[in-house]
């Protein structure tokens, strides 16, 4: 059974409206709307006083108060005098308390509806501003690297060691799995086409070149963007929330050198090694298909791969890996440093770091591929 609040209205005189409240006026129950009083008042423009009779009221809570506040707002708009004497003493005091501090008009967030053109303009300005921030950040990172070369950079060797461990050894399992499977998939897809011509042996060339030159670096880069770039952004973002980055700044320690530099260095050093390892895993994946399914001999597969994959391919792959490492580190650290001061801002920073890193990886792959094409390597 739902508890019901009752409301009746009567008019003892032409100038006075009496609102009789009875029953259970509690939130969640069936309560009359304040609109009814408003309609009544609008239909009788002569009413100047509003009084209450609450003798029949069994119990009440915020449900009654919101009703009274709504009635009160309308009354003050219409210059109708509201007499609170008939209300329960507790409700009366609470209403007075709520009205004690006047509403701060300029405290409300301005919710302006902006036109499409203004929105477009703001977004464009923001885009160029964030591009500027990106360049600024890269510039600061370059200066930090210069200071590192000069031996002046302030960072802790111990931190560098820990980060190197986190981005290399601990990443091996996931890199193994992904790259082994990618090699396997490439071999499968290639095998179906090549079998048509009886050229199964070229699966070794296909997997070898694709992995070594491109796929190992890209897959490792994307894995690292997800597991390391996001982690960097979350770490630095949390430090921003805790004012730890402010604490560094007020000590005159550059957060770029102290936090960003070791992370960038760790990834730039470890990514080529990870790529090398990913190459091996990818070729192994291809070999499983080649030897197991296509009846290519183990030695034959090895020799075919070794003949196909040139030093240039390896060089380009490792170079790409290094570039991706720097991109992942920069994206993660930049989003972390730009992080706002709330928990959701840390989440946004981590998301945005991963997205930025992956976009950066794909764009730089395109650039490297086109450049290699021009150079004929």
């Amino acid at each position, binding site marked *: 059974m739902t508890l019901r609040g009752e409301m009746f209205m009567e008019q003892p005189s032409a100038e006075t409206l009496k609102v009789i409240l009875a029953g259970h006026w509690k939130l969640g129950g069936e309560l009359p709307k304040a609109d009814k009083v408003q309609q009544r008042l609008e239909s009788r423009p002569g009413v100047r006083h509003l009084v209450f009779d609450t003798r029949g009221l069994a119990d009440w809570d915020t449900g009654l108060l919101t009703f009274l506040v709504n009635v009160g707002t309308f009354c003050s708009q219409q210059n109708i005098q509201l007499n609170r004497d008939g209300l329960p003493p507790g409700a009366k005091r609470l209403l007075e308390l709520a009205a004690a501090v006047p509403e701060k008009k300029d405290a409300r967030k301005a919710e302006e509806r902006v036109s499409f053109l203004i929105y477009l303009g703001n977004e464009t300005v923001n885009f160029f501003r964030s591009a500027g921030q990106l360049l600024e950040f890269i510039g600061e990172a370059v200066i930090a690297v210069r200071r590192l070369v000069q031996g002046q950079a*302030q960072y*802790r060797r111990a*931190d560098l060691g820990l980060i190197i461990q986190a981005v290399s050894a601990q990443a091996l399992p996931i890199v193994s799995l992904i790259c082994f499977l990618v090699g396997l998939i490439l071999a499968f897809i290639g095998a179906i086409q090549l079998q048509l011509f009886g050229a199964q042996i070229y699966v070794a060339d296909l997997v070898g070149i694709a992995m070594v030159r491109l796929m190992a670096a890209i897959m490792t880069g994307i894995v690292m963007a997800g597991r390391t770039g996001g982690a960097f952004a979350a770490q630095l973002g*949390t*430090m921003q929330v*805790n*004012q*730890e980055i*402010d*604490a*560094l*700044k*007020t*000590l*005159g*320690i550059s957060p770029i050198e102290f936090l960003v530099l070791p992370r960038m260095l760790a990834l730039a050093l470890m990514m080529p090694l990870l790529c090398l390892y990913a190459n091996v895993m990818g070729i192994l994946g291809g070999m499983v298909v080649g030897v197991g399914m296509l009846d290519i001999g183990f030695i034959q597969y090895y020799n075919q791969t070794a003949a196909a994959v040139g030093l240039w391919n390896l060089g380009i792959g490792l170079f790409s890996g290094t570039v991706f490492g720097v991109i992942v580190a920069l994206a993660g650290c930049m989003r972390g440093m730009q992080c706002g001061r709330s928990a959701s801002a840390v989440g946004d920073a981590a998301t945005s770091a991963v997205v930025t890193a992956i976009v950066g990886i794909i764009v730089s792959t395109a650039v490297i591929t086109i450049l290699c094409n021009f150079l004929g390597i």
Partner: protein
Amino acid sequence: MTETAAHITVRDLTMAYGDFVLMRDLTFTINRGDIFIIMGGSGCGKSTLMTILMGLKAPAKGKVFYGEVDFWGADPQTRNRIIRRSGVMYQSGALWSSMTLAENIALPLETYTNLSPAQIREVVKLKLALVGMAGFEEFYPAEISGGMQKRAGIARAMALDPEILFFDEPSAGLDPVSARRLDDLILELRESLGTTMVVVTHELASIFAIGNNSVFLDVSQRTMTATGNPNQLLAETRDPNLRLFLTRGEQS
């Protein structure tokens, strides 16, 4: 060092976030050896004023002088040099969470001095002992209580024997006894080291116990309405807002 030499002078300072002016026309002087209280209601810009004084945020208008040097008019190197002679205790401690307390306090020492690791260990031990936390060297910030984090934050702020210490709401979130002990610690450090202390707080007990100079930021008028010793202000002020603030809302 004379008692009344100006250490930090603020002139016609305006603080703003974009178009929103937080406070304008702030002019006051912090003398050497003062325990200077920045007080005012919530949201009046106390913490913002402090971030301007410690060089994290540029003022919209006006000047801050450290001694004779125009702080925000100076080049970044000069600013860095000035700020390095000050220490900050942040509201939450802001200890570097990936390092132990000892490493937190050692970092400024490693960065700016040529002390040997053994000497640094001794200094760290001493600073922790000064704030009553001897033996906590190997703890991580997450492993100790909020009050202890603040104390450790003070130890780190004092690592380089700064001339100025900034405190952001030192007693916020502490039980009365811990808050009192922190006040005593601040007084004691001022007495023995002669450090200038700038304290942002709205804790009345602290204000009267430790402050010998202050500025009151009135949020309704968006400017400062009084400066001077808080006890004297309480005795003499006619400004109803300041009176309300200093008497905890009791009008007399």
